C-alpha cells in the first residue's frame, strides 16, 4: 500500500469522524535500517489534508496564519495503529472504544 491511499481517506467510528489529514511514523534512530513504523493517523474533522501542521507543532508564529490553520483543524486527534480495525479504499474503520490522543508532536 502507498501512503497517498491512506491520506484523505474518510474515518469512521460508529459515525463519520473526519479525514486522515496526516500519518505519523516513529523513526527508531538506534536500530539498523532506521525502521519507520506507522504509529498512528491524524484525523481532522473538517479538512482532508494538513501540510502546515500548526495544530500539531506548537509553533504560533506567524500568528494569523497559525491561528487560521489551528481553527481549520480544530478537533483533530491522533488514533494509534492498534485502534484501526479495517482499511478499505477511501475508508478506514476504527475499533469500538478507540482512544483519541492529542495530535501534538511530543
Amino acid at each position, binding site marked *: *500500500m*502507498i*501512503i*497517498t491511499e491512506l*491520506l484523505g481517506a474518510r474515518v469512521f467510528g460508529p459515525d463519520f469522524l473526519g479525514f486522515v*489529514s*496526516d*500519518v*505519523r*511514523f*516513529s*523513526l*527508531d*534512530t*538506534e536500530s539498523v*535500517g*532506521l*525502521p*519507520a*513504523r*506507522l*504509529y498512528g493517523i*491524524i484525523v481532522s474533522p473538517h479538512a482532508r*489534508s*494538513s*501540510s502546515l*501542521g500548526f495544530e*500539531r*507543532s506548537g509553533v504560533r508564529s506567524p500568528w494569523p496564519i497559525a491561528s487560521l490553520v489551528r481553527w481549520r483543524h480544530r478537533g483533530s486527534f491522533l488514533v*494509534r*495503529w*492498534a485502534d*484501526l*480495525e*479495517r*482499511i*478499505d*479504499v477511501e475508508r478506514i474503520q476504527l475499533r469500538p472504544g478507540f482512544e483519541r490522543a492529542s495530535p501534538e*508532536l*511530543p
Partner: protein
Amino acid sequence: MTSDNHRQSLRWLDAHLHLLDRQVLDVHGVPVAVVDDLELSDIPAGLEIPRDAPMPTITALLSGPTLATRIFGGRPPKSRMLRTPWVAVREVGVVIKLSVGRDTRDLSWTERWVRDHVIGRIPGGRHTPKGEESDHAQSNDRGGGAS
C-alpha cells in the same frame, strides 16, 4: 506502547510535515529526487486487521511524474514511480540523505541522458565555470542540500 514516548531514540515523523515533497540527496549531497509517495509494508487492505498486527513500516520512497496528477487529480501507477528502498536512507532532516550514490540507481536517467547527449557535447560543459577555486570544497552539499 505508551512507553515508546519515553524512548530517547525515537523521532516522530508526520508524512506531510516531514517526508512528502522533501528533497532526497545521495551520499555526495547531489539532489536525486523529490519524495512524492511512500511505500508501506503489509497492510491487509479490505480485511479486518488482527489485534496484534505489527505496525507497518516504510519500505521505500517513491518519486514519479506527479506534476499533472497533482493539478488534475489521481496518481500515477506504481510501476511508473522510481523506488528508493528505505534501507538506503541514512538521515532524515530538512532533506533526506541517502547512503548510496546517485549513479548506482536508475533514479536520474533523464539527467544522465541530457548530460551525455546534449550538455556534454557542448565545449566547456564538463568543466566548472572559469575561476573556480577551493572555496567550493564543500560545494556538493549545496544546490538542494542543507548546510
